[in-house]
């Protein structure tokens, strides 16, 4: 062994584990090409990128596209739409799975409970296209169930699908329909972990079920609720592009356009590559700060963060 120890152990590791390195290679190549090269491609947000000139040949323009974004009236529209949809998610959607889980926990018949769970988990597996399609055929003015009911009760028909004022209710209704049942799983698991002795003690003290729910179950799962709430806030910019884009149309654009849909329309459909990349960059950067902040907070709160 005349070679330096460090060097030879390196080489021996490579020899011993050569197939392991080969196994990792395709996955590594995948993220380098489809995740890291696009990050490098963010450079075009500082250029006037022309596809035929390429990244090397396109003119550098500094922060011009970012300036355009921040001074555009579109920016405030997208910004407030994003915040409002997020507010709906937080205030209306977030509590529902918690309430459902608490209610499910109170069911005495195991069979009934499992039956309910089977039904309310189902929509989670449906694509957004199916969810939105189903609500379209039900809410359409043109022979839909809801408008039929309104009409037969003597009300005016409402164009739920092509209207600014109905976009947000439709959005949150669809989110609830698809995800509220599924969202109970994590809370049910937390409830299952509560020490049964606590309930025994409470019963001794004469607490009824409602009392037990508020004094034992809810406080016991509070850490889980807080962590999920913090993580949700970190995801403020992730409102579901696949979902919102399906609902977006010319009549509701003022309330429905969010960062992702704006990037898609201005970039892919209108071909403003550099400008839309700048918008996406801004969104990604703010998102990164929010997620890291949320994780830091969640960890600080005493639970393990996700990363």
């Amino acid at each position, binding site marked *: 062994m005349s070679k330096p120890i460090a060097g030879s152990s390196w080489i021996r590791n490579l020899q011993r584990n050569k197939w392991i390195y080969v196994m*990792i290679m*395709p996955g590594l190549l995948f993220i380098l090409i489809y995740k890291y090269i696009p990050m*490098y491609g963010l450079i075009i947000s500082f250029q006037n990128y022309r596809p035929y000139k390429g990244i090397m040949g396109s003119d550098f323009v500094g922060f011009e596209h970012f300036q355009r974004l921040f001074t555009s009236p579109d920016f405030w529209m997208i910004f407030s739409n994003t915040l409002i949809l997020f507010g709906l998610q937080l205030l209306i959607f977030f509590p529902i799975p918690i309430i459902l889980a608490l209610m499910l926990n109170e069911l005495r018949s195991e069979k009934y409970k499992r039956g*309910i769970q089977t039904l309310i988990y*189902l929509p989670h*597996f449906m694509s957004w296209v199916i969810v939105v399609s189903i609500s379209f055929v039900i809410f359409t003015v043109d022979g839909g169930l809801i408008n039929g009911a309104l009409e037969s009760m003597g009300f005016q028909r409402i164009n739920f699908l092509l209207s600014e004022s109905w976009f947000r209710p439709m959005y949150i209704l669809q989110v609830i329909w698809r995800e509220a049942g599924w969202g109970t799983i994590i809370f049910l698991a937390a409830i299952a972990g509560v020490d049964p002795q606590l309930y025994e003690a409470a019963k001794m003290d004469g607490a009824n079920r409602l009392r037990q729910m508020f004094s034992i179950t809810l406080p016991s799962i509070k850490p889980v609720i807080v*962590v999920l709430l913090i993580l949700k806030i970190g995801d403020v910019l992730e409102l579901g592009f696949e979902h919102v884009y399906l609902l977006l149309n010319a009549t509701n654009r003022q309330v429905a356009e969010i960062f992702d849909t704006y990037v898609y329309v201005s970039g892919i459909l209108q071909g403003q590559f550099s400008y839309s990349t700048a918008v996406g960059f801004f969104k990604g950067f703010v998102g990164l700060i929010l997620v890291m902040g949320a994780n830091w907070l969640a960890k600080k709160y005493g639970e393990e963060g996700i*990363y």
Partner: protein
Amino acid sequence: MVGDKSWSSRMFALINGGLLGLFALATVLPFIHVFGSSFATAGEIAAKRFLLIPTTFTFDAYRYIFSTNTIMKAMGVSVFVTVLGTFWSMLISVMTAYGLSRKDIIGRQVIMFLFVFTMLFSGGMIPTFLVVKETGLLDSYLSLIVPVTINVFNMIILKTFFQGLPDGLEESAKIDGCNDWGILFRIVIPCSMPAIATISLFYAVTYWNTYMHAIMYLSDAAKWPVQVLLRQIVILAGGMNFDNSVYTDVPPPAQSVKMAVIVVATMPILLLYPFLQKHFTKGALLGSVKA
């Protein structure tokens, strides 16, 4: 709690069970309405609007949408992409996860960081689109698969699972003269079937449900998977060229045609639902251990 039979606690149980029942009903009624309406006759759709199960059944809407092979072709594309995509994603994810589960790999921490960082930040839609274009995938089915090969979250679940396997398994295989491929395919994978099944279903549902990549990367309508076709027919109300000649009189009402298309697109998920529910519930908790 069995002895707890006071009037108020009975009322509570009744109201609680009733409200949950209502919520569950509200969840499934839309499905039943769509299913029922797809078999309704034109007359019934026009006359009675409250309709879960029609009184007379007709397969007109189905005969109509299957009059051309557009839908079957789109279903075929979706099945093809889902099967091939799931297989490909699992192969690469399992290989990567197993490699990274071995602790004596040089640069393991750095590689893990490279993977995890992609969950926090990305180049975004446009640069990714340009890379997909540059790698020559536009208008190819591979554009729906290759750019999303690994879901890092799924890969980490697999890696955690592999790390939990007893070390003795690998040691004894090595003594028997297996190399790392042998260990992975003959020992590790067969011992990890529950995790493999769960993650395969995760990938399969994602591939089946995706439409965004298809509208971004496939400009040729003949290559559309069923989700994109569904959006075209129901949400954009773009209609499609069905063969009207199968009808001597009038084509079935647009509403029931849309319902029928939704039913066809929903069927595969409904048929697989028992498996999905079982494995996904496990998976959701696997994920929450980390979350």
